[in-house]
């Protein structure tokens, strides 16, 4: 169960806003880069975000550059999950790959500062401040498996390969692909 305060953002928050190019030289120093996370979208966030807080955004969060550093520095600042109405494709994969939960749900009803509780396994988001419950869209099986292993590096270290199951819980018929899951 995750519990924290909501930081609200709008639609189309790009990776250029999450990890600005002017700090490109800090990519080899992620704790330093993380001090600037999202500062072009909301300077207050970079200054005041607390561990376990949650990012709550509109449509197409994380569009643009494939820079994984964007997801990495969000996680590094202790954000426990990002909730959005939709995510850009590469950011979505990157977040799962580094073990940052990303949740698709109707974020319109959540306001800045609301206290949220997220149960990833049960697929529920509760806005404690407003006393409302929101459904979340389940992750594809493969992404859930990667997330539960703590990211893609851990996943392939553990399995020696992708452990790819279809959404219906059956192994893919691809011979080149999946190993038996443990």
């Amino acid at each position: 169960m995750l519990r924290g305060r909501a930081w609200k953002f709008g639609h189309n928050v790009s990776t250029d806003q999450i990890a600005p190019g002017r700090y490109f030289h800090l990519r080899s120093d992620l704790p330093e880069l993380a001090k600037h996370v999202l500062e072009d979208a909301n300077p207050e966030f970079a200054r005041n975000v607390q561990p376990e807080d949650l990012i709550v955004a509109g449509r197409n969060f994380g569009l643009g550059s494939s820079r994984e550093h964007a997801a990495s520095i969000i996680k590094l600042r202790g954000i426990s999950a990002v909730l959005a109405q939709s995510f850009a494709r590469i950011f979505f994969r990157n977040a799962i790959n580094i073990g940052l939960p990303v949740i698709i749900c109707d974020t319109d009803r959540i306001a800045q500062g609301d206290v949220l509780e997220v149960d990833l396994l049960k697929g529920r988001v509760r806005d404690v401040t407003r006393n409302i419950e929101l459904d979340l869209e389940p992750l594809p099986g493969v992404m859930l498996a990667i997330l539960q292993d703590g990211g893609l590096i851990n996943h392939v270290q553990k399995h020696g390969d992708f452990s790819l199951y279809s959404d219906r819980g059956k192994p893919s018929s691809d011979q080149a692909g999946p190993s038996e899951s443990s």
Partner: protein
Amino acid sequence: MGHTMAEKIIGEHVGREVNAGELVVVEVDACLIHDGTGPAVVRELEQLQELPRRGLERTTVCLDHAAPSPRQELSNEHTLLRNFARETEVRIFDVGEGVCHQLNVEWMANPGEIIIGSDSHTCMAGALGAFATGMGSTDVAVGIALGKTWLRVPETFLIKVEGEFPKGVYAKDVALHLIGLLGADGATYKALEFVGSSVSQMSVGERFTLTNMAVETGAKTGLCATDERVRHYLEQHGRGERFRFIAADAAANYEQVIEIDVSQLAPTVSKPHVVDSTAPVEEVEGVRVDQVVIGTCTNGRLEDLAVAARILRGKRRHPDTRLLIAPASMEVLVQAYQSGYIQTFIEAGGVILPPGCGPCMGVHQGILGDGEVCVSTQNRNFKGRMGNPKALIYLGSPATGAATAITGRLTDPRHFV
């Protein structure tokens, strides 16, 4: 049932027919990394030393994002990548050789291949009939380590582009118009397939502009069927034997069909701060512009520089407007030099940047000042993109850029062609 190009290419790699929506593991034919996201790939590979590195043989390293390096931290990242290339004997393109996507199509990508790159515009190689897609560092590190990746077979939007290009309208205007139609997330997780008489008539270099910008609709990749022009392109680049015809089946299943009549298009720009806020140039004419950038992976090919040079020949840039030229590769720079375009740009008051990403992502070579306005032929105009969140970026064609450089204000290129 027929199959789309994406389904066919992925199916060939899986060894059976696949349909949109399936999750599959596929062998990757090539991996691409650069100095922005590559150092993380190298560091992650160190954690995956037990794995066989099956993808290493066709991995390429390009130093293009901060090249030549403007800071010691980035110089050290370049050293890391050079050492990696030396130790693993993978191919490296060093500073000044070009943008990774242009180098990929000039030197590596072939029809029918699956290519993953740690850069979102990897999809550009789709104009050669490759399924090429951008991913993050971890996905590419694992792709190199295992020689494969997992994909969801994408649904496809068919983009039919028909009609004669009016004067002053180019592939970039088509790309921007399409992004305006679909929106910045209108094709998330989909593939775009570009067909139609206008696409057939485009040079391969112009098609790269279309497939490059596919990701700006959220798409996973953009594809064009291969034809004699692609065969000729590969022959010119020493890979004629790798040519093959690839196209969708006639009965392929498309999620959406979008028709664009090029003859009705006007020169188009994308206004700050999102790529889908498009408008005809004539609607925003007159905005004062401090810097014009012509080039980058989106529009830094010989065709693009030819269009700009024709407009700029015998003219000067406006005294208050800087003009930066960023050729996409050394090959382009040499050809542009031999064609006289480089002299034209210099005589017009332009600055020739080394082949590479140039000022596109705000690391060097033309970072904007507070409140400054830039017209660029690059692919993104997000807030802060060119190094300053207080600057404004308009995206347009090389013709729009060249016309604007002369007048110092956003200018419809039809006044000059």
